[in-house]
């Protein structure tokens, strides 16, 4: 039972990260129909920016996190402007190639600037908490809690503010949104900003427990991509549920069945879902 709870907690912790990274990606994919494969690499860059502020400039953890959000947000805006916007109207596979180009660029950039050596952000909350027979680090609890707060905030932003609603409007009907006077390009920029900023938050949450390396974004990016498809492209609840779902499958499948084939469970589940519902859990009919 203790083991189960422990695995459950691990699953939720990872699911939280997946959920916020996938959330950022689903906004971008829903709105621009851009398969932004470089999203995981933005996440990686976010971790390094936080590292830079904490280690090189000696800022506090939370200040660094905020700065990282803002800076990475602008990196996302720039990326949208110079990489993806010129590709509007081309087949999506081209945007996909551009995204691969962008991710190669970002990974090499990190390699050139910070080198290949793994780097570490000192853990701001190293306390150990014991509860219900399971042990957890405070920082991990922060990941779970922080992710939940972020999700709620984003939800409120999308549902309760006019600016947030414009994002949904553009995602649902681009031309319709244009005709109501929404500046679609600005919404695209804003979406990229939010998407990148959430990736920076996820990276800042996780990097004190893990290690920064230029290649760290690849796997997470791929998983986020899969979650977005699993949940239904552009669907916010789909990304959140998909994220937690994947985290739990990995933790439980990896802990109880076979660690080697851990990823097979995750990807297998996706295939299963899509062959039953070809547009994802919360996906609309294609139109």
């Amino acid at each position, binding site marked *: 039972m203790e083991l189960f709870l422990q695995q459950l907690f691990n699953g939720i912790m990872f699911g939280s990260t997946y959920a916020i990274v996938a959330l950022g990606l689903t906004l971008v994919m829903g709105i621009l129909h851009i398969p932004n494969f470089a999203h995981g690499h933005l996440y990686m860059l976010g971790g390094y920016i936080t590292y830079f502020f904490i280690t090189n400039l000696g800022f506090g953890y939370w200040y660094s996190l905020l700065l990282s959000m803002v800076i990475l947000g602008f990196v996302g805006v720039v990326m949208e402007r110079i990489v993806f916007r010129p590709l509007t109207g081309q087949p999506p596979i081209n945007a996909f190639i551009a995204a691969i180009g962008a991710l190669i660029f970002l990974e090499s950039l990190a390699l050139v600037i910070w080198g290949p050596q793994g780097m570490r952000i000192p853990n701001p909350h190293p306390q150990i908490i014991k509860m219900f027979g399971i042990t957890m680090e405070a920082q991990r609890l922060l990941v779970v809690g922080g992710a939940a707060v972020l999700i709620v905030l984003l939800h409120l932003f999308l549902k309760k503010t006019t600016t947030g*609603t*414009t994002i949904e409007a553009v995602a*649902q009907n681009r031309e319709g*949104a244009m*005709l*109501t006077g*929404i*500046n679609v390009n600005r919404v695209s920029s804003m979406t990229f900003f939010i998407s990148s900023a959430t990736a920076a938050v996820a990276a800042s949450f996780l990097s004190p427990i893990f290690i920064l390396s230029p290649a760290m974004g690849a796997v997470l990016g791929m998983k986020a991509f899969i979650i977005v498809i699993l949940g239904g492209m552009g669907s916010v609840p789909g990304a959140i549920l998909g994220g937690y779902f994947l985290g739990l499958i990995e933790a439980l499948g990896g802990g109880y069945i076979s660690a080697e084939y851990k990823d097979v469970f995750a990807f297998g589940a996706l295939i299963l879902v899509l062959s039953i519902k070809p547009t994802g859990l919360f996906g609309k009919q294609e139109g």
Partner: protein
Amino acid sequence: MLKLEQVYTDIGELHIIHNVSLNIQKGEFVTLLGSNGAGKTTLFRTIAGVLKPAFGTVEFNGIAIDKLPVHKIVDLGIVLCPQGRQLFPELSVKKNLVMGAFSLRGQKSKIKKNLDRVYEHFPILKERSNQLAGTFSGGEQQMLAIGRALMSEPSMLLLDEPSMGLAPLIVKQIADVISNINHEMDTTIFLSEQNANMALNITERGYVLESGKCVLEGLCKDLKNDENVKRAYIGA
């Protein structure tokens, strides 16, 4: 108010609009007749800025708008209520309407006023204000689309085939509302229709578009008696 001069529009390699010039005065209620594929929608999209003319100018109140992005044109007061409605299917009716007032963002009381007025024109939208737009029937969606277009208090409304695919009873209802809008709110309306019967009965003046060319223009009462128009669009 709206002035098109020698407008040509291409879509891809196809030349859709050829040398169209027209002029609409403030407060007028004008129709654009044309059969399916005549280029009505393309012409409207060109005016609204979704498409850019290959040649020619579009002026609104003396300002050249043919190079402006769509949202700037909306800010100037031209709103297109598009064919196929282009609603936000997963937003509620109310949110769809509020989005329609995007160019008035920040002016809460004005939005509230406009919302009440749209509800007045279309009571059914008020009843179902929390329902998702995607669940509506065709007629209701059309009402919502018109309502949304009105939310920004446009000085000019472009209505692209509002009657398409709707039952005659609903067409009548919509036609009444459109007339009301023109009279009461003093909104200039440019209406495109295949259904010439309805259009010629409520509007004052009309243009006839054929294969992307403007072949005829005149007052409605004259158009109604024109043999060609009769044959082609009224079916009498």
